[in-house]
């Protein structure tokens, strides 16, 4: 079943066409990767899907529903949660609290329940606490839940951001260059985490430069170049595709 469907999505910045009539179907389950050289329009594509930018034309469907040009919080509510190329943690909060914020969508407490601390509120807080600790364990950060997020090493910050996104229980998780700035060792751990997330039933769509990570984790790869989709298919097929080789190595090698 198709979970996310982009239909002729276009976005221009002045004279530049960052995303040019891209059609893309992301199947439910598994890992899909979007690759392409720098400036190919990958991040713009992510911003369009997550609502941080709006397309000039085209439609974006999620689980059959038109989510084109909805604001980010509405798209998150629909079930798409993203991470950022430059990690966007709540630096002022503890590791544990960062994940608790991620639970926002699936909890209800408002102003009055916070003031009155009803039994329901307390029970909800216990559930949030348990879920946050479980997710910390999932990404291997359970050692220091009270540490300020800003004190974590960069690789740990990436993992924390992913765990926080999972707390929102997305149907589709968008990862924007999750391996950027990670060591080879950390990338390997990340690769395992991404497979585990897909194994738990969350569909993953990722943008990535690290080809080893992409080849190891993705079931399907879409290749963008100058805003256009030039190839799509399983890793083995995309690797052999002449337009992809041309885009990555220059036309002379094709």
């Amino acid at each position: 079943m198709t979970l996310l469907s982009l239909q002729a999505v276009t976005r221009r910045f002045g004279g530049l066409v960052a995303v040019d009539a891209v059609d893309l179907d992301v199947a439910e389950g598994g890992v899909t990767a979007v690759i392409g050289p720098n400036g190919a329009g990958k991040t713009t594509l992510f911003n369009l899907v997550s609502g941080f930018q709006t397309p000039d034309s085209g439609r974006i469907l999620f689980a059959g529903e038109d989510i084109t040009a909805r604001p980010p919080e509405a798209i998150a509510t629909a079930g798409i949660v993203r991470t950022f190329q430059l990690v966007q943690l709540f630096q002022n909060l503890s590791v544990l609290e960062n994940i608790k914020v991620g639970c926002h969508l699936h909890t209800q407490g408002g102003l009055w329940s916070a003031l009155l601390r009803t039994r329901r509120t307390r029970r909800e807080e216990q559930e949030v606490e348990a879920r946050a600790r479980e997710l910390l364990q999932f990404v291997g950060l359970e050692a220091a839940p009270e540490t300020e997020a800003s004190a974590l090493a960069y690789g740990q910050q990436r993992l924390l951001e992913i765990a926080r996104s999972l707390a929102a229980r997305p149907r589709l998780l968008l990862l924007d260059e999750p391996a950027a700035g990670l060591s080879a060792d950390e990338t390997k751990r990340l690769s395992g985490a991404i497979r585990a997330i897909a194994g738990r039933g969350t569909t993953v769509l990722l943008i990535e430069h690290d080809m080893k990570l992409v080849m190891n984790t993705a079931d399907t790869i879409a290749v963008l170049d100058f805003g256009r989709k030039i190839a799509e298919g399983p890793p083995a097929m995309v690797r052999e595709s002449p337009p992809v080789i041309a885009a990555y190595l220059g036309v002379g090698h094709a």
Partner: protein
Amino acid sequence: MTNLPAITSRDPLRRGFVALPWAVACGMLTYAFIAGGYFVTVMSFAMIYAVFVIGLNIFMGTAGQVSFGHNAFAALSGYTSAVLTATYYWEPIAAFAAGLALALLVALVVGWPTLRLKGHYLAMATLAIGLIVYEIATQWQSVTQGYMGISGISPLAFWGYEIVSERGKLFALVLIVLLASLAAARLRASRFGRALAAIAGSEDAARALGIDVAHYKLAAFLVSAAYAALAGSLFVHVVEFVSPEVFGLHMVVLAFTMLYVGGIGTLGGPILGAVIVSLLPEMFRGFKDYQDLFYGAGLIILLIYAPKGLAALSDLLPRKGRA
């Protein structure tokens, strides 16, 4: 809850650093009850300001926004309490309810359009509303009696029970501050408070997790305006007099000083800041002509060496065993 780990620390020196400003604040309050007189008045003002600053801290410390105009909400509620009790003989509680409603209505009208914008629009709008309310207080003489002010306001009363003695008023104010602080602590430790703190950390990340940023900013603005309104009404009932100067720009400057000296974003900071800053002019009185000079220098030194304020003094010590 940023100051909780420090309080629960087992390091005795660190504990001492955390406890010192609290010991001073509690000591001063106790001394006020024993000694009575002028000192009770100083501490009563400190407690009223504490209510104001606790609210401001929710908006500025937790949610990371800026407002230069919360004095407007104190003025709206304070004047409503004054006029309704002095001219129309309302019960103080009923008058406060009317003042609170008016302050919240104005906060809604100011906050609704401006909080949807990023940047400093809100700060500018709040500055304007503060000045506008001040102008109204001075010019609308048939109701506010202008610079003359309103006297004959009924004293602090709860359910028909009037509190007349200065010590009694201070005691009631301390209780109100504790309740106000408890409410703020509960808010901070909840889903609501986490959403505000998330907005302060990264608006984009908050939105990506489904938090309606404009909605929560407005909610934080209204909550802090309610605290300001309570402080405004308390002031007029405690002093039994009100004039425009009471809620002028001076109130904003003083509240900011208390917030930063006590520790912005901490739970205890507003109370500490309110007590210590209220005492500073008394402490520096001995310097006579140089009083303001020493007062200013003291503030600068504090903000350089303890930028997170008195509630986070223990941060000055080298940290051990940080993960």
